């Protein structure tokens, strides 16, 4: 009966570990973490010697009279507003990414913590005083 109890504990712990690891792997794939890592690694392996891109362009001359100048400030204003919106969206995206990284970190830490405590429970169970006293009798 004692052996059955310990075996059951081991089986339950093993199921928990496998389930947690599977869920973790699925979460890593789902969040795109794995693809990001593989993309970075493939980028690393494909990186060759650095090159320098030189932008070339012709020179032009602006000609105009006094009349059309009035529309210029309005255009600048639009560009400014668009730039501000883009900057806001970019910082919001950056904070979202940080939150995602925090979630990934927490998920990995939880997975490992749960697995470690399960392993600890197994080893504690196999060396518990109850078992030792039972086997002695």
């Amino acid at each position, binding site marked *: 009966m004692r052996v059955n109890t310990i075996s059951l504990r081991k089986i339950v712990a093993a199921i928990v570990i496998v389930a947690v690891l599977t869920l973790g792997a699925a979460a890593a794939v789902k969040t795109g973490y794995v693809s990001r890592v593989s993309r970075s690694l493939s*980028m*690393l392996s494909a*990186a060759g010697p*650095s090159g320098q891109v030189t932008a070339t362009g012709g020179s032009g001359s602006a000609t105009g009279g006094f009349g059309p100048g009035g529309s210029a400030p309005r255009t600048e204003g639009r560009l400014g507003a668009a730039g501000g919106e883009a900057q806001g969206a970019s910082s919001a995206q950056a*904070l979202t990414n940080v939150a995602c990284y925090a979630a990934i970190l927490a*998920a*990995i*830490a939880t*997975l*490992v913590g749960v697995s470690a405590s399960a392993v600890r429970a197994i080893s504690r169970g196999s060396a518990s005083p109850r078992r030792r006293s039972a086997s002695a009798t």
Partner: protein
Amino acid sequence: MKRVNAVKVILDIAITIGFLLLMEPKATGLSLHEWGGLGICVFFVVHKLLNWSWIKAVTTGFFSKKVPASMRLGYVVDVLLLVGFSLIAISGMGMAKTIDFTWLLARSGAWKGLHAAASFLTLAAVGIHLGLHARWIGNRARGLAALLAGGKAIAAPSFAKGDSDAR
């Protein structure tokens, strides 16, 4: 709670939050990203120095039976973290724009890929490290919270022999 343990917990929290913020350069700005990265490296070295007795004990007795498997696993993860942080720092210096490291490292297109790959893999290693020391962190965080609340600090738990969190 001992003062050194309080320092350790505060340092660990700072490293974790700082590392997460540094994962996204747009969140901090490039200048802060680069200076903050150097700061994290200094924090990492201080973290290792504060736990030097543990490192020394496990290094010298790594292959002996006295060191349990969980502690060996933690040690291997720590070595991976050391490699990861070193790669991040070196590649970061190689591609730095606001700090001039050209006197030390030549600029190359390969640094970016190495920096990103090392960052993601180190993030995973940090997660494993935190998970392996979750009990230690939980105990110390409770002690620190009690200390900050002005109440009596929770006594540090006596760790059983072979507990990998005893550091």
